[in-house]
């Protein structure tokens, strides 16, 4: 067995560290999906009539759609009638402080290294956390500090109750329920999520952060996030995920919509570490996400940064609609796949306004028998004079049993557009590993070092505390990989 093969062998044996189940009483909707279930969800959440109507319209549209086949992924199609579409912790106390949170839940977060207590105590590094366990938010912190500046940061359900006019105005404005199969499904059955509103001219004083977890067997997760940044405002939003080990595949179909007005600046960062399935590919999360933002006004800026290490199947294309003149879209991505993981991820940059700019930096790392695809669209519409795009898509292969694929789509309808695409494919070489070894660095640390170096350009885009977390996560994902 060559060294490379050994490396691979051990790489594929590293196990998911966050595999455990928290036992919190659930209240389930019966399995299956029909209009009654949607009415049940809506009633549970005490929603206004217009929202129920919107859900039903989405459901009726969803029924006319079929699951997309074009992504470069292969998985057993979920049986949508065999899923629960609503699960909430039974006790839903009004919380004054974290002391009132279910201790078991707090423990879960601790084991994940996401201690809310610590987050709160460390208020020097102010991170407001809207913790989502399954579908219902159970703890929200720092809201008062934010409220002083007129910033709204709350669960989606609360936003529906407290700020219906905002939700009604923006819901579906970036990702309409007709957008795609999973967006339609999400629109019909979404249970909760996060809502952030940054008023005109306000720079959000802290990173906004939501930790999503999936914690109930057979419960599809249908989060809905809506972020609205008014003129001249600025916000950095962090999202991180990790889930317990499960036997059955779990479906996650989230929708994130971001509305960026004139001269506003939104940065959306994700570190995703959902259960990827075991070495045989069993039990991992299906992650079919629609994320899109619109730069609605001139000089608006939207930047997506994602570090994707989890999920059995990922299907995700955070996109920017650059409608405002001089608006800017960015996409920085690290996608790591191992074992039998499959990822088809990338972005769409739609240049509509004049002198719009976009930048794409995608770093794929494939190991084991995984398949890692980049799929990106750069579209320049007719009136987008002077549009600029730069795309860089790099793939790093570990061993010879994995696959890296690049599917760039470029559609240009304006001759003044300037579009560049660069792509590289490389392998972690024995030479590199030996060089590290010869300096006393063991192979595990060497792989982490090399991969972190390769991903540096993307990791640098993350807020500091998240970058550290992401580096640890990469090292963890690669742990035990090499001998």
């Amino acid at each position, binding site marked *: 067995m060559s060294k490379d093969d050994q490396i691979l062998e051990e790489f594929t044996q590293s196990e998911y560290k966050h595999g455990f189940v928290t036992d919190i009483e659930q209240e389930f909707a019966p399995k299956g999906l029909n209009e009654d279930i949607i009415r049940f969800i809506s009633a549970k959440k005490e929603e206004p009539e217009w929202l129920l109507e919107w859900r039903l319209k989405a459901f009726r549209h969803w029924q006319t759609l079929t699951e997309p086949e074009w992504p470069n992924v292969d998985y057993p199609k979920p049986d949508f009638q065999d899923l629960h579409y609503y699960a909430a912790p039974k006790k839903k106390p009004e919380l004054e402080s974290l002391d009132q949170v279910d201790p078991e839940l707090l423990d879960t977060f601790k084991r994940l290294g996401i201690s809310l207590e610590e987050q709160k105590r460390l208020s020097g590094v102010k991170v407001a956390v809207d913790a989502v366990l399954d579908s219902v938010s159970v703890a929200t912190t720092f809201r008062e500090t934010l409220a002083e500046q007129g910033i709204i940061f709350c669960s989606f359900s609360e936003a529906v109750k407290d700020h219906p006019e905002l939700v009604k105005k923006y819901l579906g404005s970036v990702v309409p329920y007709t957008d795609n199969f999973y967006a339609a499904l999400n629109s019909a059955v979404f249970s909760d999520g996060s809502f952030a509103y940054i008023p005109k001219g306000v720079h959000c004083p802290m990173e906004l952060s939501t930790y999503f977890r999936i914690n109930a067997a057979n419960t599809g997760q249908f989060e809905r996030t809506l972020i609205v940044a008014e003129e001249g405002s600025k916000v950095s939003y962090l999202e991180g995920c990790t889930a317990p080990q499960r036997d059955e595949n779990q479906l996650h179909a989230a929708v994130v919509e971001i509305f960026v007005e004139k001269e506003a600046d939104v940065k959306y960062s994700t570190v995703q570490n959902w259960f990827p399935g075991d070495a045989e590919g069993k039990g991992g999360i299906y992650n079919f996400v629609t994320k899109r933002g619109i730069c609605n006004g001139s000089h608006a800026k939207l930047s997506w940064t994602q570090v994707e290490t989890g999920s059995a199947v990922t299907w995700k294309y955070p996109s920017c609609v650059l409608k405002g003149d001089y608006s800017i879209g960015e996409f920085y991505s690290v996608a790591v796949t191992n074992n039998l993981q499959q990822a088809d991820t990338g972005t769409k940059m739609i240049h509509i306004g004049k002198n719009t700019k976009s930048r794409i930096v995608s770093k794929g790392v494939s190991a084991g028998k995984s398949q890692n695809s980049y799929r990106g669209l750069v579209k320049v519409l007719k009136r987008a004079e002077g549009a600029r795009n730069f795309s860089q898509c790099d793939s790093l292969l570990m061993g010879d049993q994995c696959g890296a694929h690049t599917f760039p789509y470029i559609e240009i309808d304006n001759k003044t557009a300037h579009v560049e695409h660069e792509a590289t494919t490389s392998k972690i070489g024995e030479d590199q590993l*030996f060089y*590290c*070894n010869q300096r006393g660095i063991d192979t595990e640390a060497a792989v982490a070092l090399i991969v972190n170096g390769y991903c540096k350009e993307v990791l640098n885009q993350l807020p500091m505390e998240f970058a550290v977390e992401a580096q640890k996560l990469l090292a963890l994902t690669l742990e035990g990989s090499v001998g």
Partner: protein
Amino acid sequence: MLSIKNLKANIGEKEILRGINLEVKPGEVHAIMGPNGSGKSTLASVLAGREDFEVVGGEVDFQGKDLLDFGPEERAREGVFLAFQYPVEIPGVSTINFMKTALNQVREHRGEEALSAVDFLKVMKEKMELVEISQSLLNRSLNEGFSGGEKKRNEIFQMAMLEPKLSILDETDSGLDIDALRIVANGVNKLKNKDNATIVVTHYQRLLDYIVPDYVHVLYNGRIVKSGTKELALELEEKGYDWIKAEADQQFA
């Protein structure tokens, strides 16, 4: 310090080292010379633990321990350093970050605590001056886009940081102009002390004007066929390797 007895190594089916014997004591500098393809770089790689080569016989004792029992990172932590003929590029990883990781793993092996950022920078600054290397170079991605001279200087910087017992310089003079050669050799000389030893692997005598060896060995066809003092290097420079080849071919025919 280092005792090599009848060391034999193959790559695939091919015999490269056919029985090397060598004794190195603390404070000594040994030069290994020889024509191309004689096995010089292989010897360096085998000592460092490169797995491309299969050791098929012999013993290597390093400070009372069987070196061949150890993986490459353990050998490094025990104090074996190889200055590479072709230093490897690692994009996105600065020399500083690389050295910090390495030094802390070596220290952990020795039962020492990891250096704080401040202490690490102090040590780094001191070693930078010793080997005349600029911080801007150390901030760049390791060896990426470095000139030949910068790469070799960086190797010597790493050697200074890790303070090895035994340093093996594999063709460190290749690709260097005379000024770079002098800087590199100066660095090596400054790091020399009575407790450490150096093996200089080189094709040319030139480097030995600057790093003066106590012993010179000629490697040919996988064996050390002649040993002597620094005068032997001068003789080789003058007469070439052919006379030694002829002698050896006769002896091992």
